[in-house]
């Protein structure tokens, strides 16, 4: 626990939200990545959050980190587009394995996570500043 432990913890939270936003952006950018049905389709990535050990009152690092990014399971939806260069003999192409509405919700959640961590940092800053004014003249 350092002098600015609340800052350090908030920083890890913002870092995670930052990577989460990047992940969702990557998924959304690949919303139209079509593949041949014989190949592995694009699968949406999901961020996995894990706590740094301990808690706020131990000596070890506290906060959160992105442990992994797992790919979405499931079969790729096939669409019939016989003219497409990636279509197989029957005229099907595979769309990405991704839930667009779910990604939008994830985007909102990531944004709110970021804002929540900004808020916790802001509160910590205000607390430190008022502690500095303790017993002072002004």
């Amino acid at each position, binding site marked *: 626990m350092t002098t600015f432990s609340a*800052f350090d913890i908030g*920083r890890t939270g913002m*870092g995670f939200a*930052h990577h989460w936003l990047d992940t969702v952006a990557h998924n959304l950018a690949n919303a139209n990545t079509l593949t041949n049905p014989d190949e592995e389709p694009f699968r949406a990535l999901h961020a996995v959050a894990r706590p740094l050990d301990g808690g706020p009152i131990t000596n070890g690092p506290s906060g959160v980190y992105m442990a992994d990014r797992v790919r979405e399971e499931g079969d790729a939806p096939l669409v019939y587009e016989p003219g497409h260069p990636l279509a197989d003999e029957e005229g099907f192409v595979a769309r990405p394995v991704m839930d667009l509405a779910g990604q939008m919700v994830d985007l909102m959640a990531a944004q709110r996570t970021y804002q929540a961590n900004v808020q916790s940092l802001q509160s910590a*800053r205000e607390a430190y500043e008022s502690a*500095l004014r303790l017993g002072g003249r002004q």
Partner: protein
Amino acid sequence: MTIGPIGGLPPMPPINPADTATRSATEGFRDAFMRGVEQVAELENTANRLIEDVATGGSTPLHEVMIATAEATIATDMLLQIRDRALEAYHEVMRLQL
């Protein structure tokens, strides 16, 4: 009934010559203050490095920079508060009526 003579005053113990405890205390404050200055300088250096990295297109996320500058600001504020209070105490002693 006899009254005993008034004895002489016992000798005054010598005043400790500006004893070492006081001196080491002042040096302790000076050392602690200098250490504080160094730590604040360290935080400012970190903030500067991150700002430079962002300004030159590095991969540092923006929030890291803002947190580092906030830390440096608060550390500087704290150092100033400590200096102000030490100075205030010194002035208070200087104003003592003897």
